[in-house]
Structures are given as C-alpha cells and as structure tokens.
C-alpha cells in the first residue's frame, strides 16, 4: 500500500466523493418520504447503508486500485465461484436465488460481480497491444462477461445480467474496438431482438407491451407506468413539496422507495428537482469518465470507463422507465433507490474511480 502523505491528500479526489455524498443524502430524504406514505421506517436503515457506503468509497479511494487490477482475474474467479454457490445453496426469495449470507450479513454477489467484471475487463484490455482491434479480439472479453452474466441470468435476474452487456460495450469502445465492428455488432443486436422477445416469459412480454401502450390496461400491467407518469406529470415545475406528493403519500405509486424513486422525486420536487438530480448525476458520470483522461495507466482508464458505463446504463434504464421511454425492468436507480447491496456496490465502484483519479498522471 502506498503511503498516505500530505502530498497525496492534496491530490485526493474530494470532488467525486462530494457529488456522491450529495446524491446519497438526497436518496435518504426521498426514501424517508416514500416510507412515510407506506407507514414504513426505511429511511433510518438507508441512512446506515449510506454512511457505510460513503466510508467504503473513501477507504477504497485511499487504496491503490492497482492492487485490484493486478489480481483482477483472481477476484473474477472468486466471484464466479460465489455466483455458483448462490445458485446451489442460496435461499429462494420471491422466486430467485440471488442472496447469500456470509457471516450473518446478507449479500448479493451479482452486485459485486459487476465490479469484478469491470476489473477483469480493465486488466484484459490494458494487457493487449494498444491498437484498434476487431471482433476476433472480443472472444476473451466476451467470455469474461458471459460466464457471470449467464450465472446471474440463471438466478433468474435478467435485469442485472443485462447490465454486463453495456459495460462490455463501453469498455471495448474505450479500449479501441474498431468503429466498423461496433456498428456491425449493434446491427446484429437489433436483428436478434425479435428472437430474444420470443424467449421471454409471459410476464416479461406483458411488461414490454405495457410500456408501448400503457393505457390499454391501466389497472393491470400498465398500472405501474400510468401511475408513474401521473406522479411525474402532476409534479409540474416546482413539485408538490417534499412529503406532500399525493401519488406517493396516498400510495398510488408502487415501488416508490425503490425502482420508482425518481417518480417520487419528480412529483414532490418537480422539474427543478429532476434537473438538479440529473445534473448531479451528469457531474458524477463526467468525473468518472474524466478519470480516464488523467488515469496513470490504461487499466485505470478502462476501469473509469467501465464504472461510468455501468452508472450510465442504470441511470438511463431506470429514469427512462419512470417516464415511459424504456420498458419497465426491475433495475433500481443507483444511489437514490432504497437498498443496501446496491448502495454499497455503487459506492465501491465509485471508490475505485476515486482511487484512479487520486493517482493521476502528473507531467
């Protein structure tokens, strides 16, 4: 471990941590509002998670990420073993085996697997010749992604499994995958979409269709989206006031503390609140990406791109679903949604970027 001296502290990335803290605190407030409507007390627990997450981000930021990129394959292997273990021994909770208890603490290995895959990909892409590459060179990275993604899909947790693909795409792009190959892969994905649709389960198809035409069945599959849009739309410019949203406080908005916390924000704090939060997210993502500019080495740069890609994907899918731009999937909004595993994993990922940024290249 590198020594923490005064000079290190002067280049330590406080900015990213500050943006992270802002979003986390806003999240706790929103969870408090959501739990008031449902007579639950989630805010306190979320507060504990958030404090732990921030501490984790600081600690990881202080550590040298190169210890992790050096051992990336080992970490990746450990996570794959853990994922197999969850599938074999994990308790079945609401139809899926995604949790495991280690030393009395519940843990979702899929959240950690995302970080392990980012680390492994950063290592893999940085090890190769720094030259543009084509489809042939995607075999190894593809395998690194496919194995954990499949294991998670088996839980089954399609939403989380799907996040690996954009992470791979973003990192491959940053590492120099040829533009032509990129376009070609994107094109095949569009062609494959109808085939993939046929493999979906009925409830998944219902979700997809309800996204396209929610008003067809406003009390059934489309209910969630319609209620979400009512919440967002009725928020207007300035919102109905914190703790005063009718859609949320009267409980018309399901999953308001979780996947639909953005709708609660939009209802209670209006467009202004949305603007502030999305600006904060952009600031965070921008800082994550710019970590690549100042990273000391290729592995650090790809690590930053991977974490930014993960964050971006979650943001787009979750926020897009709240306003009906993308289908409803069970993906929480990182940093704002209620839930410990997601908060800790996101903080861990951001902490890695903080570590990269704090060891920046100085001419």
């Amino acid at each position, binding site marked *: 471990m590198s020594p923490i001296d005064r000079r290190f502290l002067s280049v330590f990335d406080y900015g990213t941590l500050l943006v992270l803290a802002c979003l986390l605190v806003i999240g706790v407030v929103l969870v408090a509002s959501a739990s008031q409507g449902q007579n639950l007390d989630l805010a306190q627990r979320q507060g504990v998670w958030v404090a732990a997450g921030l501490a984790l981000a600081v600690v990881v930021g202080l550590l040298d990420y190169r210890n992790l990129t050096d051992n990336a394959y080992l970490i990746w292997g450990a996570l794959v073993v853990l994922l197999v273990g969850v599938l074999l021994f994990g308790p079945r909770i609401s139809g899926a085996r995604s949790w495991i208890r280690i030393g009395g603490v519940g843990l979702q290995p899929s959240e950690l697997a995302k970080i392990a895959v980012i680390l492994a990909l950063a290592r893999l892409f940085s090890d190769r010749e720094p030259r543009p590459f084509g489809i042939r060179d995607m075999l190894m990275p593809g395998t690194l992604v496919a194995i954990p993604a499949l294991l998670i899909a088996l839980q089954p947790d399609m939403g989380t499994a799907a996040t690996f693909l954009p992470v791979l795409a973003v990192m491959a792009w940053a590492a*120099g995958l040829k533009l032509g190959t990129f376009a070609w892969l994107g094109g095949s994905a569009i062609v494959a979409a109808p085939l993939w649709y046929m493999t979906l389960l009925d409830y998944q198809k219902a979700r997809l269709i309800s996204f396209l035409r929610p008003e067809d069945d406003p009390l059934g599959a489309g209910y969630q989206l319609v209620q979400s849009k009512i919440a967002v739309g009725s928020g207007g410019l300035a919102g109905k006031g914190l703790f005063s949203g*009718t859609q949320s406080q009267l409980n018309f908005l399901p999953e308001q503390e979780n996947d639909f916390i953005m709708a609660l924000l*939009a209802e209670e704090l209006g*467009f202004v609140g949305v603007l502030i939060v999305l600006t904060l997210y*952009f600031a965070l*993502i921008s800082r994550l990406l710019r970590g690549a500019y100042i990273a000391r080495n290729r592995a650090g740069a790809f690590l930053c791109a991977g974490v930014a890609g993960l964050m971006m994907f979650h943001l787009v899918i979750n926020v897009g679903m709240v306003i009906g*731009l993308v289908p409803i999937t069970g993906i929480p909004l990182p940093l704002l949604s209620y839930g410990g595993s997601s908060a800790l994993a996101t903080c861990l990922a951001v902490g890695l970027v903080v570590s990269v940024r704090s060891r920046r290249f*100085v001419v």
Partner: protein
Amino acid sequence: MRVGPWRPDDDGRVGRAGRQARSVHRAPKQLGPRALERASDRRRVVARVRVLEWSAAAVIMVLLLGFWQIQIVRGGEWTARAEANQHRTSRVRAARGLILDRNHEILATNQASYEVAVIREAIGDLEQELRYLAAMLEIPASLLERRLAEQRGIPRFRPVVLASGVDPRIVVRLQARRREHPGIVVQIEPRRHYPLGTTAAHVLGSVGEVSPRQLTAWGDPYRMGDIVGQQGVEGVYNDELVGLPGERYALVNSVGREVTILRENAPHPGETVVLTLDAQLQRMAEGLLAGRRGAVIVLNARTGGILTMASAPTFDPALFAARFSQEEWDALQSDPTKPLQNRALQVVHAPGSIFKIVMATAGLEEGVIDRNTTYFCPGGRTFYGRFFGCLGNHGNVNLVQAIAYSCNSFFYELGVKLGRERIVKWAERFGLGTETGIDLPNEQGGIVPSDEWLASRGGRYYPGETVSLAIGQGPLAVSPLQQAHMAATAATGFVRQPHLLLEVEASAAGQPYRGFDYEPAIRPATFSESTRQLLLRGLAGSIAYGTSRRAQLDGVTVGGKTGTAQVASSERVAEENADRPEHLRNHAWFIAVAPIDDPEIAIAVFVEHGGSGGAVASPIGGQLLAAYFGTEVAYREITTPAVTETTAGENEGQR
C-alpha cells in the same frame, strides 16, 4: 485536456519490480521511443472516452426533455389525472321521511339495522371465516357462500353484506371477537321500520331497491341500490319521502379507503307524510277482520279522508325492508288468499243490495217514483218469464220501507221502469265503474253495464239482466272503496275525492325541498236535498227496524244498508249458503253513515264469501261505529236465530 503519455513503468504488464518505484508525483524519468506510441494510444483512449462523455450528456438531455414534456408541456393533463386518482365523490343517503297518522302516531320510520359484511381483502382463509360466521349467525355456510358469490363484482376492499337485520346480541358477540377476525365488519344501515307491525300494511306499502326499469325512467339522482317506495303510500309519495342524497368529497388512497373528508354536502332528509288514517281505528278494523278475507273502509264523509282502510289477510311490510329471499317472495306471491292484494280497492264484486241506494236516487231524480209511491210485494215477481224472488212478503212498501227491509220486489219494478241506461247513468254519477282516484296504486274501476261495456261484450243484453241489476247483481262490480264513497256521497250530497294524504310536513331536520299542494277535489252531487233526506231515512230505517239492526248504537243514530252478493248461479242456490263450499258462498257487504242528521263518517265492510251482509258484515260495521263514537252496540242477539237470520231479506237472488 492536456494529454501526456501513459506512465512508462506502468505500461503493459506491471511487475512486482516496479512497485517500490511508484510514487504519486514522480515525473516521468525519460521519454523513450515507445513513449510517442504510448502518447498516441493515450490520445486515442481520451478521444474515445470523450465520445462517451458527449453521449452521456446527450442521453441525459433526452431524459430531461422527457421530463419537460411530461411535467411542463402536459403537466395539467397529468395533474387532473392525479386528482381523479385521489378524489372520490360518494353519495350520502338521505334519511327517508316519516309516515304519520292523523294524530301523528308513527306508521313508518327508520331504524338502525345491523349488517354483517366481509372485506375479502382483509381475510386470509375465506372458507374458515365463513364457517365461523355461519356458526355465529346460525345460518348455513352454503347460504353465506351463495350470497358472497352473488356480489362478486364488489371490489375486494369494499364490504360485502352477507347478513342484515342481525340480532344485536349476535352483534355484541361478533364485536367481542373482532380482533381475531379483522375482515368481518358490522355496519349500521338505516332500515325502514313499521312500529305498528302489520297495521295498515296495504296502505303503507313497501320499500325496496330501485329496479332497473325505475332507474331508467327516473334518472338522477337515483342510483343502483337506492331504497325507494315500491307499493302503497311509500310508492305514491316516494318523491316526498325519499329526500335528496348528499355528497361526500374525500381523499382516498390507492386501495380506495377514505383518508380525509374534504367536503360534505349534507343530504336533505325526506319529508314527513301525514295521512288521514287513524291508527287506532285501523287496528280495530284489522282486528275485526282477523281470520277472514275482506276489507273495511272508514271515510270522513265531510272531507273524503280515509280514516281506515283495512284488508285481510295481510302481510308484514318489514319483510320487504329486509333482504327478501326468493322463497319468501314466492310464498307471498303464490298464497291462494292473496295477502298482498289490497281488497279495499283492488278487488271488485257485485254490490248486492247496497246498489239500491243508486236505484232509489235514480227513481226519485228521474221522476219514476216519489216519496209516496208504493209497490206491492208478494214475495217476488215474474219478469220476462222468470221468477225473481224477494225474501219476505212485504205487502205494500214505499221507498223508505223498501230500503229498510231491502225489498227486492220494489226495486225490480223500479228497475224495469227505469231501464238500463238510466240506472247506469246514476251508477256512474255515484262514481261506480271508474276509479275513485284515491292516492294509491292499482285501483280497480269495476264494471257498470254502460254502452261501451255492452259493445265490448258484443252487444248481447237480456232484459232480465236489468231486473238483476236493480238489486245490485248481474253485470256490476264495485270495490269496497267505491261503496264507502257512494255511501258518503248519498249521505252528504257532495262528491268528495277519497284520499289518504292529510299534509306533507318538512322533516324536523330540514327545509322542504319542494312544495306540495294537495287539494282533494270536491263537487256537489247531482241529486236534490229531498232525495238525500229520503235516502237517509231509508238507511236509518234499515238500522232501526230493517236488515242492519246489528249495527245499532247507543246514543248515535246510524244509517246503514246491507248487501249480499251472490257468487253461485241460480241452479246451485238451492243449497243453503252455509252448506256450500267456501268459494261459492256469498259475499257480505255493509255500508253505514253516522250520525244521521249530519253524517260525519261513512264506512264500508266487505267480507269475501262471508255469507249474508246482515249477519256477517253489519256486526263488524256496528263495532267500528261504536268504537269511533265511543259508545256501545245497542243490538242484542235474539235467541230465535232462525227468524232473524233469514228475515233479513238478503237472498235477493233469482229463485
């Protein structure tokens, strides 16, 4: 951003050897030939990440535009939907108005009734809870299941009523265990209550849920499930009684529970309908009819107000107010004694000798007879080749005696002289053959042999029918109400609209929401005062020494007339009335007016298949009159029944 090369010692595989040399701020020691390549690689990575950054900015702009579109551009639309979501307007039922008698005794009111309901949303094991309820309510569980199935359409968070009118003692037991059974609730519903039980059931009628047909006919403000008047006064004065429902505007949560009541427009309770009925006399009349089939009318002769309208057998109107089972309904409907029928005005029969009032008036007014005209009664006469009998040999009788003794021979003669047309003309002037227009539904107008009636029958008419007509037989049918009305007209010289409504009062709790102006029609009758005096003398004679002696009173002079309407045809009359099967026995009639000098009330008594009017109907009338005037019946039963029973002269029929 300024872009330099990757750290040379960090490039490529990082060996352990490089570790200790690592320091944050150390500048690159050297820029070798590979450094240029590293620098270009770095520039390439930075360029690509910059594309990612711009993409992120673009995507977030798209999201922001999405929010702008929903929140700002279409914000009003979604706000309206949010309000529609959370606001619910529900109706508050108005309390139904009271029905009172003329002395403000309560005939119909509202009473809290306990309903047991289940909220399916709050119940785990429905079957188990239904078994529990069945045991508590002492109803088979299958019945509860059926009622639940019938109301499947009700949302799961709303109570489904499974039992109503539940005994308060059961309610107490249910309430004691409500914590263990959170899905079972007891609700209090106002239910129509008739404190006097079956008293005046036919007049009061019944309430029930509004029918689909009524809903389409009436429109607002009625809604499915509203309780409205269906029969009798409840139905006729429903507009006054029903009140105006209020509205409650409440904030509801996603499962429809009211969180806060924002605004409430109180309902207007229904108005109080005061009837001309006298509940005490009504009870008395019903008591006198108990065990028989028939009807009693007591009319205020000076106003046309109905003091009593009894019909037997009767029914319990509370049955309709409760949830009526199909079996109970079928039983009432198919009962051969037709308890739902109001015999006072929905059943018509031949008037028998009561019709002699019409005949007498017609004879006098048409100038066929005068007060001194006498006919000889040899005990019957032959007309058109047939013998028409009279009960006694009355000898020479004038009009007053003919009425008092109910002499058939006199009226046969008179009838033949008058002819059908003139008889019908006077019958119609007394209101026979048409509805009286009383404020009750389904009144029967009856039959008089008018030209139209003849035409409808194909024009066949035998002269002998006029002879029958003269004594109130043949093609003639009147209701008890018409008989009472006729008696009142004869006694007072005025035709007064029979009616039940005395007045409509604002309910104690509110202002009347619409005015009500009730003025019963009244017009002078078309016969002379001398005719009226003669009629009254005849009726008084019937009481004093004629066929109506059983209605004699102490201290009050009564005028009356008996009638016996034949049911069986002439061939079968050979048997004594009492020996016939019941459905062939004669109907007994009696009308009376009192006091004779200035008639105050008119009554009509009808006993279906009761026998002779003098023996069966007049004693009932006597007791009613005695009760009304607070006196006693003066007539004492004479121990030689053979004479008194038959000299009554009631067997007017053709022999």
